[in-house]
C-alpha cells in the first residue's frame, strides 16, 4: 500500500499546519454504498457514516453511565419507568442540501426503524412515534432501561430524501444528505474522500478533508500506519511495539480502552463434571490472563479483565459491587487445588480425577481461522494442565462451530458476550434462563453454556424492569455474586473500542488522561474526536 512518497504527498505542508487527515481500515476494496443503516456499507465499514449522520445524543462509549452530550436533541426525558421518551430537537441545524432539520425528520428516522426490521438493528420495540413542533415523543410497550443508550444515540436521516427511496434497506444512497460537518467528495474502492461543509451548527472542525482508505489486509494497514501514510486506524498489529510504536515513538500512539462486553471461556454447564461450580472456579483460578493479553492480544488489543466479576474496567468500574471492589483475578494454583480437593476431586500425579474417579478431560474448540482465540485456547490448555485437566484443542470449521455452540454441543469454547450501556448485557447473555434451551436445541441467542439459575433469571428480570436505581443495584450485585461463585463463563478479555493514531500532524486525540471518547474510528464518537483535533503545529 505505501511507498515513500505517501506521507508527504497527502500531507503536503504539514509544517504550516495540516488540512487532511488520513484514516485507514483493513477492510478490502469497498463498493459505493453510503447507507448508514447497513453494516456492509463503505460508510459503516470505514466509519465515515458518523461524519455525515449525527445522533440525537452523543454518549461516550467507554463511559456509558455518564450522561450523554446533547447533540441534535437539546433535551430528552424518560418517563413512566422508561416506557416513554420525549426529545426536544435542536433548532438551526441544516441538512447538507440546505434544508432545515426538523422534528419531522427525527420522527421519520424512528419510523423507518419501526417499519423495517432490517434497519432496526437493536430490535427496539417501538410504540407510537409523534412529532409536535420541535418535540418528538416515543412510547414503548415495556421498560427500555437497558436500551436507553441505544435509543438516544439513534442517528437522524432526512425525510425528504429517504421517503423517495424505493427500498431503504437496499439503497446504496449514492449521495447522502446529513447534518454532519462533512460531505462525500469522491469515492473509489480504495479511498473515500470527505470534505468539510461551509457551515455547521457547531464550530467547524479544523480538518478540511478526511481520507478514508480501505487497505486490503492487516499487513497493508499495519505498514501504512508504520510509515505514517495512515494516521488513524483500528487494526490488530502483532508485536505492536516493534512493528508500529518504535517506528516513531514520539507520535505513534495507541489507546485501547475497554467497553462493556467481554470475551471468555464459555463452559457447557450441563456436562459432567463441569456442572460442578467448584471445578469451574478452580479452572478460573489457573487461567493466566497476562499471557492471554501479552501473547494472544499482542499486549494491547483486547484488554484483560481484572475484576473477578468479569466486568471490564474502567468502563464498568462504577457497577462493581462493594464486596468485589478490589478483588482481581490472579493465578492461584494452591487455591485452585484446595477448591478441588474440597469438592472431592483428586489430583493423582498430573491427572485430575473427579469424585467418581474418572480423569477430567476437556475439549476446547474454536474456528480454525480465529487466530487470537486459538492462541488463547493454547494458553488455557497449558494452564489447565497445571491442575491435571487434560485439554485438547479442536480447531473446528466455522459453520460447524456455530452450530455446535448454538445447540450446546461443546465442552468449552472462547466466545464473546453482548455489550451495552451496563453490565446487564453481559450477564443477560451468559445467564438468562428465559432464553435457555436444552442441549441439542438450536436457536438460542445467548446462554450457550446452558446455565440454569432461577436466581440469576430473576435478578435479570428485576434489573430490566425495576422502577428505581436501588432495586437495580441490588439485582446487579446478585448477578455479580452468581458470576463469581458459579463462574459459568471464565472471563478473559474485554471488548475494546480502541485505535492507533499518530500525533505527527494532528493532536487532541483521546487517551488515558483525556477519556472523552473511544479511540476507534468507526464508532459514533469519532465525530467528537474529529471536532477535537487541532493541527500539531498550533499547540
Amino acid at each position: 500500500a505505501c511507498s515513500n512518497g505517501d506521507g508527504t504527498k497527502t500531507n503536503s505542508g504539514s509544517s504550516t499546519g495540516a488540512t487532511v487527515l488520513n484514516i485507514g481500515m483493513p477492510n478490502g476494496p469497498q463498493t459505493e454504498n453510503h447507507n448508514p443503516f447497513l453494516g456492509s456499507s463503505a460508510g459503516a465499514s470505514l466509519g465515515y457514516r458518523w461524519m455525515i449522520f449525527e445522533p440525537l445524543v452523543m454518549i461516550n462509549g467507554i463511559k456509558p453511565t455518564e450522561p450523554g452530550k446533547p447533540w441534535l436533541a437539546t433535551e430528552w426525558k424518560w418517563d413512566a419507568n422508561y416506557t416513554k421518551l420525549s426529545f426536544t430537537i435542536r433548532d438551526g441545524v441544516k441538512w447538507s442540501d440546505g434544508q432545515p432539520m426538523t422534528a419531522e425528520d427525527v420522527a421519520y428516522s424512528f419510523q423507518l426503524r419501526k417499519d423495517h426490521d432490517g434497519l432496526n438493528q437493536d430490535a427496539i420495540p417501538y410504540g407510537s412515534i409523534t412529532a409536535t413542533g420541535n418535540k418528538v415523543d416515543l412510547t414503548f410497550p415495556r421498560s427500555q432501561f437497558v436500551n436507553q443508550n441505544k435509543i438516544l444515540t439513534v442517528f437522524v436521516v432526512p425525510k425528504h430524501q429517504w421517503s423517495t427511496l424505493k427500498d431503504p434497506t437496499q439503497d446504496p444512497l449514492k449521495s447522502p444528505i446529513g447534518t454532519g460537518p462533512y460531505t462525500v467528495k469522491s469515492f473509489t474502492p480504495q479511498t473515500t474522500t470527505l470534505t468539510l461543509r461551509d457551515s455547521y451548527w457547531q464550530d467547524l472542525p479544523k480538518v478540511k478533508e478526511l481520507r478514508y482508505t480501505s487497505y486490503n489486509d492487516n499487513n497493508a494497514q499495519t505498514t501504512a500506519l508504520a510509515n505514517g501514510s495512515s494516521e488513524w486506524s483500528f487494526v490488530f498489529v502483532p508485536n505492536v511495539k516493534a512493528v508500529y510504536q518504535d517506528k516513531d515513538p514520539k507520535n505513534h500512539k495507541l489507546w485501547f480502552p475497554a467497553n462493556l462486553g467481554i470475551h471468555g471461556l464459555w463452559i457447557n454447564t450441563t456436562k459432567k463434571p463441569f456442572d460442578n461450580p467448584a471445578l469451574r472456579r478452580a479452572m478460573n483460578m489457573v487461567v493466566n490472563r497476562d499471557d492471554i493479553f501479552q501473547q494472544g492480544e499482542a499486549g494491547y488489543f483486547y484488554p484483560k479483565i481484572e475484576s473477578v466479576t468479569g466486568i471490564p474496567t474502567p468502563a464498568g468500574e462504577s457497577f462493581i459491587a462493594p464486596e468485589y471492589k478490589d478483588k482481581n483475578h490472579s493465578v492461584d494454583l494452591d487455591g485452585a487445588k484446595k477448591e478441588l480437593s474440597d469438592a472431592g476431586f483428586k489430583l493423582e500425579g498430573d491427572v485430575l480425577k473427579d469424585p467418581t474417579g474418572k480423569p477430567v478431560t476437556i475439549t476446547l474448540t474454536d474456528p480454525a481461522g480465529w487466530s487470537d482465540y486459538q492462541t488463547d485456547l493454547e494458553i488455557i490448555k497449558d494452564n489447565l494442565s497445571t491442575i491435571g485437566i487434560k485439554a485438547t484443542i479442536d480447531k473446528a470449521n466455522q459453520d460447524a462451530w456455530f452450530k455446535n455452540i448454538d445447540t450446546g454441543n461443546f465442552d468449552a469454547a472462547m466466545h464473546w458476550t453482548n455489550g451495552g450501556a451496563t453490565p446487564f448485557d453481559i450477564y443477560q447473555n451468559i445467564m438468562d434462563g428465559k432464553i435457555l434451551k436444552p442441549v441439542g436445541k438450536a436457536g438460542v441467542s445467548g446462554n450457550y453454556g446452558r446455565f440454569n439459575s432461577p436466581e440469576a433469571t430473576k435478578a435479570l428480570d428485576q434489573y430490566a424492569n425495576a422502577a428505581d436505581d436501588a432495586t437495580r443495584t441490588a439485582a446487579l450485585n446478585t448477578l455479580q455474586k452468581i458470576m463469581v461463585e458459579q463462574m459459568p463463563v471464565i472471563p478473559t478479555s474485554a471488548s475494546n473500542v480502541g485505535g492507533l493514531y499518530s500525533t505527527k500532524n494532528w493532536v487532541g486525540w483521546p487517551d488515558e488522561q483525556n477519556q472523552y471518547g473511544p479511540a476507534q474510528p468507526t464508532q459514533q464518537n469519532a465525530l467528537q474526536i474529529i471536532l477535537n483535533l487541532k493541527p500539531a503545529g498550533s499547540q
Partner: protein
Amino acid sequence: MTATIAAVTPAATPTPAKRRRLRFVANPKAATGLVVLAFFCLIAIIGKWIAPYDPSARSSDLIQAPSAKHWFGTTHLGQDIFSQVLVGTRGVMYVGLLAGLVATALSILIGVSAGFLGGAADDSLSALSNVFLVIPALPLIIIVASTIPSAGDLMVALVIGFTSWAWGARVLRAQTLSLRRRDYVEAARATGESTWRIITFEIMPNLTAIIASGFVGTVIFAVMSEITLAFIGISTISEWNWGTILFWAQSQQALAQGAWWWFVPAGLAIAILGTALSLINFGIDEFVSPRLRSSGHTRVKTNDGHSVRMRVGFTPVLSSKQAPATPVVRRKENAA
C-alpha cells in the same frame, strides 16, 4: 502436469518390460527425485517421534530467530517451527498421496473405459472430463472445501481427488484409444481373451508409465492445493501441516515482524517436495521417450580442432586421425 503433453505421443517406442523398468531408477533425475521423496516419506512416518518438541507446545521463547535450540526459530507462542515442519510432513504426504490415488483411480476408470469402449460412452465420458478440465480446479476446490463442515485431511484429499482426475483421464483415454487399435490387443481378442482381461492384462500394463506420471502430477497438484487451502484458512488446521504453518505466519503477520524463519522453511519444503516429484516425472517422461533425455556429451572435437555442439542438421566431423583405417585395396580411379 504440463510436462505430460509430450509423454502422450511417444507410445510408439516399445514400452517397458521388467528389466527395463529397473533402468528407470538409473535415470539420474528420477533417482534424485525418488531419494528426496523417500526422505519426505520417512519424515512423514517418523516425524512425530524425532521432533524435538511438541509442535503445539508453548514456550517462553516468543518469535525467536533460528538458534541451536530452535533450528527454525519459534512462533508468537514460542512453538518450535522445526517440530511443526517435521510433524506437518505427514499431513502433506497423506493428503497428497491419497488425493493422487483417488484421482488416479478415477482417471483410470474414466479414461480407460472411454478409450476402450468408444462410441457414445466415450463421447459422454470425454465430455465429462473436458468439463472438469476446463473448469478452474483450484477455485472449485476452494469453494467446495469451504462448504464442507469439517474439512479434515481425509475430506480435503477426497475433494482434491474428485476434482483433479480429468487431466489423467484425458491422457489415458488418448493412449488407450491408440492401444486399443494395436495389433496385440486385436491379437489377444482373436486368441479369445475376454474384454476385462484385455483391459487389465493387455492394456493396463502398457499404461503404467502414463499412470505413474499422472499420479505424480496429481500428487504435486494435491499438495499445492492442500497447502493453499490451509494457507487461506479453509481446511481444518487442527493437524499440523506446512500450509498450517504458513497460515499462522500469515495471520500473525510474520512478514511485518520480520520473522522470515516462520514461513521460509515450510515453503522451501513444499518447493523441494514439488521439485522431487517433478524430477520423477521427468524421469518417467524420459524413460517413455528417450529423446527427451538431455544428452550427456554434446560437445565434440571436430576436424579443425574446434569444439562444437551436436545438433540437428549439422553433423560434426571428428578429426580424421580417430578413424581406424582399414587397409583397402582399391582399383585405380578410371579416367573419365
